[in-house]
């Protein structure tokens, strides 16, 4: 056990920061304050990610045979921290490298890997995640969207149903879709569905988290083929769990929270208002971020060693939710004008992203259920 970064990891961080200084436009922070799924950020991601790929920094942690550099998950996390703190210039493409790519690496056919990983590595493909439905939010087993095999052609399914809260759907080329392929609750399969298939309708939902983040997606006799199914039919639950373990600790959210905290403290110091009560509140919020960082790192470490996660991703995710809230509350308590104005765009950006942390990728209370069951053995 040791807690230091290697010289190479420090160098990677410095190199990426220099890369950002050279490649982010002057008005980037105003752009970033739109959501990752906005037209502007999505467009920018298609310029930024190819450059990042050229530097070997987009998916460096993937195996060499799939276009990565064979770097460790730690390197990917160093990159994630720097980019999330900077307002996530990868836009929605962070999905690809954080959890969709790794899930395809684990469960995909050779054909699926060749098609999708190479597109992700080019840095210009947008994905969305079709899990939640009106009848199945926290209770994903309650989804109703069906993929039914057609009589005349055993290779083809027809998808009917509706997804909701689907981030990035309007501009997405593919959907990581969960649908029922049998009568039982657990009879689900995952499909890698092109979003330009006839029968798909996407409607944006206006929200406080920003433009482009939430949508409804309707499926009306949409064709999807066997070779587009990820993993075996009816075995989708395992694929979903795997992907969620990656997603839940994919974003180093504490990095932007800490930047926001630093910004708010600087404001108070500037106005000579960093009184002892504020010091206590700020330092306590900082410890929440560091607690989240430690638990996230522990999950990354376990993942690297291929050990089962038994609740550690959920524990880390819950700590992340606490950290986001501690910092957001510090801003509202001590520098409310940074929330109500656009004086510091990244502070408002943090608030938009933080408010969703306890819901997206599974509600905080669901994480607690999983910790209670898998870590503490309660109620089993």
């Amino acid at each position, binding site marked *: *056990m040791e807690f230091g970064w290697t010289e190479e990891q420090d160098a990677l961080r410095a190199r990426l920061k220099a890369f950002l200084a050279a490649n982010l436009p002057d008005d980037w922070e105003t752009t970033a304050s739109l959501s990752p799924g906005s037209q502007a950020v999505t467009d920018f991601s298609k310029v930024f990610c190819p450059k990042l790929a050229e530097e070997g920094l987009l998916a460096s942690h993937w195996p060499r045979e799939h276009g990565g550099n064979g770097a460790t998950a730690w390197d990917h996390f160093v990159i994630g921290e720097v980019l999330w703190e900077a307002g996530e210039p990868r836009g929605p493409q962070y999905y690809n490298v954080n959890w969709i790519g790794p899930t395809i690496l684990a469960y995909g056919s050779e054909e699926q890997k060749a098609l999708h990983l190479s597109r992700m590595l080019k840095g210009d493909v947008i994905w969305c995640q079709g899990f939640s439905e009106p009848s199945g939010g926290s209770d994903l087993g309650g989804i109703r969207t069906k993929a039914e095999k057609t009589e005349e052609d055993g290779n083809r399914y027809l998808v009917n149903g509706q997804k909701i809260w689907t981030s990035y759907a309007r501009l997405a080329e593919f959907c990581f879709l969960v649908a029922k392929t049998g009568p039982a609750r657990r009879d689900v399969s995952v499909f890698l569905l092109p979003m330009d298939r006839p029968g798909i309708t996407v409607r944006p939902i206006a929200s406080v988290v920003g433009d482009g983040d939430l949508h409804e997606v309707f499926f009306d006799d949409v064709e999807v083929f066997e070779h587009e199914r990820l993993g075996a039919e009816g075995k989708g639950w395992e694929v979903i769990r795997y992907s969620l373990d990656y997603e839940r600790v994919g974003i180093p959210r504490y990095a932007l929270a800490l930047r926001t905290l630093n910004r708010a403290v600087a404001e108070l110091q500037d106005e000579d208002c960093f009184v002892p009560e504020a010091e206590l509140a700020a330092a306590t919020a900082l*410890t929440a971020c560091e607690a989240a960082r430690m638990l996230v790192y522990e999950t990354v470490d376990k993942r690297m060693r291929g050990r089962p996660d038994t609740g550690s991703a959920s524990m880390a995710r819950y700590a992340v939710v606490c950290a986001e809230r501690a910092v957001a509350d510090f801003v509202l308590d001590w520098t409310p004008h940074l929330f109500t104005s656009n004086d510091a765009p990244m502070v408002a950006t943090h608030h938009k992203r933080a408010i969703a942390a306890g819901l997206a990728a599974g509600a905080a209370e669901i994480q607690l259920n999983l910790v209670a069951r898998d870590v503490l053995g*309660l109620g089993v």
Partner: protein
Amino acid sequence: MDFTLSDDQQVLLTAFDGLLDNYRTPPHGIHGYVAWDAAFQNELDASGFAEIAAQEGYGSLEAAMLVEAAASCPVGVEAAASMLVGPLIGHTSGVLALAWQIGRPVRYLAQAQRLCIFDHDAVLVATPAPGDWEEMSGVSAYPMARLLRVPADACRLPDDLAEAVRRRAIIGLAAEAAGLVRGAHEHTVRYVKERQQFGQPLGHFQAIQHRLAEDAQIVQAARLMAFRAAHADCSRQAAIAALYVQDAMRKLIHDCHQFSGAMGLTLEFPLHLWTYRLKVLQGEAGGRAAQAHSVASATWPKQKSKPQLATVLERTI
């Protein structure tokens, strides 16, 4: 970054666990508040574990690991100060006590061979003699005595050493508290699996599950943060770890007592051995305000302020 124990660390902890095994069950028939065991203290001394931080191939991280492990036992032993601070001041055996203020209760003072006294930036090292202290009674599970005066042989440490002693004391505080929250939490989780009400174990109720799951996250974060501070041997990390656990322990202590019911308030039930030690550590070393000030000074050094209203304020009507 590596969150897995090295082979050497694994061997060390396994051996230490063997020593702790004799002290893992609460002393039977205790009717006092304190559960400090001189035999435990002597065994720790004789075993050589107490000097781990000064041994080849080991350091303050391994010392913090042993402190955390020892603190998770219901039977108390002074380990944090002697293992982490001791090596810096040539204290090689027996109890080392830490006094944060003259006139106030000090843990393990009556048992101590040596004493560090913190007074603002100064740190004094002394040999406490009878008359320097008086024993106290109270509800805390630590043996406590009041420091009445500065012992005759006290001498001041040079500034750099004083800073290192303070840092190690805070790391020890964080590591000890991390072990204590773990002990209290593990005991409570076991209890709610056994105790039945409404026809099922208490642990089946979601209201209880969620709070214990939140507390599990506190236990694990406190432990990792204390170890990180020990590994870096860094004052800022030490203050972060101590502030985190001094803050979070308040909720955890409350939860553990709630879920243990009235049984948890009895002396025969060991919960108080962890929680009443934690209650002492909650305000130790200046408490959250002092740790927060250290974190803030190290993280956000004072910026020059701009007096916005200065020109107007000089005008009078």
